[in-house]
């Protein structure tokens, strides 16, 4: 906001002097370095989340055995493991990578600005986020262990230390989540304002690349949905620490209130992480099918429609929680309605592919894999959105497999799609395409190997939160156990194959082939600057925009792409 920084001694950075290591990598102001901080933090947290999934899947496949690198697992540790896995993967992997990392990196470059609108606020957002990372990791190691009441933290289990037996862990958990919300509120307002106000001359609303739109809409959804949960988190914190009774019906409160507060945020949150991923997929499929995005405005309207509708569906998570059946009818209708815009968006992507000249490069494979897997995730959501069938399926492995079929494509396939596409721009090096394809196929196949069996288990009646099935004769049959073992083995393949990605990512960062400015012949603005872009992105000559972002294969042109900033 400042015109003059001389009066802020603590952050008086001249942008043009030689920056020290500390200024460049630890407390950078440059949006590209903040993006990398978010990205690497998110990748680190993904390893933690992945480790916990390994631990509890091993327990489910071979109950009671000693798990390598973990040891014997107690029921409390199992609950803590699933809770930490869910919380970390959504709040500390999907959010920082998809919104914060890609938003930071892409928005200023794609709208033709030199940085975010508020660079210091941007840095503050990462620093606050880092505090939340420290808090959530600390919660794993405190006496009593990490919070084990599921990532949804329903009271009274989350509110009463006498029930959850993790007084410190659950308080640290709610604090970490609240601090993380604050970080993304700060960051989100910055994204929205940058995308709205800092656009280059000529960058009209229908010339903004789809991924910028999507990240902007996602930030708005986050900002408007998280407020009630912030208030709810304060109330839960008071219930834990001060022994108030906000969620205790015997003292005038109501536990159902938390579920409403949580899911009023929690459902839009699905679309908060989904939209950036679909935006990146849109960029990739247009570039690698050398075609204009089919129905730019329609894609935009479907994503806005999805965003608006996502505020009207939250109670479909609570059909069995004791909500009034008459309300359940309304929420069934809205839930089924929301599948219309999101399905239409995917159809438009498929229409973009039609008669394109498709290259199956690594980013394209991830984009197509995303569409395939996410369609399965969406279709299996319909029986869960209808209250009648949900009462049977609720809290079973069917639910679990359904939302992993949405979140895995979003958080991992979408991320790998975007990362393999923009890696040259981020680091100035090329990734190895062959290794990328091997990584894709191993991940894609093993992912289905994990979760398709879980649909089967869910339909067989397997409940989500059971530590050991040997006490349930119906579920402990050798047939079902072999399905569990198959899913766990697939997970091991999935986790092991990530080492290919990590090698590809880190090795090429230092020793890879230098990337040209525009390796994919793409038309958007970020490819007009060198890889990696210099500080200030566009030097002294800021781009002017003359056309939409997806002018591929235009007839009568020598090049099959047409940079947005090239005068006609």
């Amino acid at each position, binding site marked *: 906001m400042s015109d003059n920084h001389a009066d802020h001694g603590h952050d008086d950075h001249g942008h043009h002097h030689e920056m020290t290591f500390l200024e460049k990598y630890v407390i950078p102001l440059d949006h590209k370095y903040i993006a990398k901080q978010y990205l690497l933090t998110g990748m680190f947290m993904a390893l933690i989340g992945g480790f916990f999934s390994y631990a509890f899947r091993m327990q489910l496949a071979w109950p009671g055995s000693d798990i390598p690198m973990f040891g014997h697992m107690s029921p409390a540790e199992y609950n803590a493991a699933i809770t930490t896995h869910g919380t970390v993967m959504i709040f500390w992997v999907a959010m920082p990578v998809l919104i914060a990392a890609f938003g930071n990196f892409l928005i200023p470059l794609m709208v033709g600005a030199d940085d975010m609108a508020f660079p210091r606020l941007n840095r503050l957002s990462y620093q606050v986020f880092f505090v939340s990372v420290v808090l959530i990791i600390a919660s794993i190691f405190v006496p009593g262990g990490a919070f084990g*009441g*599921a990532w*949804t*933290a*329903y*009271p*009274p*289990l*989350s509110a*009463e230390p*006498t029930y959850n037996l993790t007084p410190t862990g659950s308080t640290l958990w709610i604090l970490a989540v609240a601090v993380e919300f604050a970080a993304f509120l700060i960051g989100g307002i910055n994204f929205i304002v940058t995308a709205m106000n800092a656009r280059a001359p000529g960058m009209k609303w229908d010339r903004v690349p789809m991924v910028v739109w999507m990240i902007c809409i996602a930030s708005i959804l986050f900002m*408007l*949905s998280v*407020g*009630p949960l912030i208030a709810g988190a304060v109330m839960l914190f008071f219930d834990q620490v001060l*022994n108030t*009774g906000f969620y*205790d*019906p*015997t*003292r*005038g409160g*109501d*536990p*159902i*209130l938390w*579920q*409403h*507060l*949580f*899911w*009023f945020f*929690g459902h839009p949150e699905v679309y908060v992480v989904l939209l950036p991923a679909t935006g990146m997929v849109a960029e990739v499929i247009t570039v690698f099918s050398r075609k204009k995005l089919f129905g730019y405005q329609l894609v935009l309207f479907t994503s806005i429609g999805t965003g608006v509708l996502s*505020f*009207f569906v*939250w*109670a*479909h*998570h*609570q059909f*069995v*929680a*004791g*909500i*009034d*059946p*008459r*309300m359940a009818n309304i*929420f069934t209708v809205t839930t089924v309605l929301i599948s219309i815009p999101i399905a239409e968006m995917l159809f438009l992507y498929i229409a973009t592919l039609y008669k394109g000249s498709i290259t199956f490069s690594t980013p394209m494979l991830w984009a197509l894999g995303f569409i395939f897997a996410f369609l399965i995730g969406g279709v299996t*959501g319909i029986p*869960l959105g209808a209250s009648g069938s949900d*009462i049977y399926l*609720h*809290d079973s492995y069917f*639910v679990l497999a*359904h*939302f992993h079929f949405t979140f895995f494509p979003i958080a991992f396939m979408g991320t790998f799609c975007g990362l393999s596409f923009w890696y040259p721009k981020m680091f100035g090096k090329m990734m190895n395409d062959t290794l990328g394809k091997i990584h894709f196929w191993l991940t894609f196949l093993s992912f289905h190997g994990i979760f398709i069996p879980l649909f089967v288990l869910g339909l067989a009646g397997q409940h*989500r*939160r059971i530590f050991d099935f040997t006490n349930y004769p119906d579920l402990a049959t050798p047939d079902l156990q072999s399905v569990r073992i198959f899913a766990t083995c697939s997970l091991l393949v999935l986790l092991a194959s990530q080492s290919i990605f990590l090698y590809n990512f880190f090795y090429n960062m230092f020793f890879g082939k230098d990337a040209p400015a525009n390796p994919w012949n793409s038309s958007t603005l970020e490819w007009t600057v060198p890889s990696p872009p210099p500080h200030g992105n566009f030097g002294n000559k800021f781009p002017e925009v003359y056309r939409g972002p997806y002018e591929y294969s235009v007839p009568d042109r020598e090049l099959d792409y047409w940079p947005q900033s090239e005068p006609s």
Partner: protein
Amino acid sequence: MAEQAHAHGDHGDHTSHYVKIWGALLVLFLISVIGPIFEIPALTLITAFGVACVKAFLVMKYFMHLDAELKLVWYILAGSLVLMFVFFFGTAADVRNHEGSRWVNVAAQAEVARGMAAGDGHHGEHGGGHEEGGHATEEGHGAEGEHGGTHEAPNGGH
């Protein structure tokens, strides 16, 4: 390119205008304090909340200059407010009511009965010993049978 849309962009002195608005706000404030004296519930409702809305309107229009802002700003604020009504009506059906179609919140009804019987005073207070008093009966529609046992936390979610 952005024409700063200020109604008061003419840089005249509007001090007396602002003081008048402040005076109007104080009058409204007095009305809201006096209202409950007549002990007519409907009147109290109007003088308390109707007047609060008018006060908020005056502050937004004349102090925040919202009428001179872009339409966009109006959409941002109105959108946020509308969502809160959505939240309220979606949630109040379960939280405000203590019984509904085939469910009854036994614990909350007991708490209302106890509070009404105790009358005023701190006597609505709770000691620490209340915890055993029936967590299990929250949202007691489990009596219907087929839903039995479904409301043990954590219910998890999709």
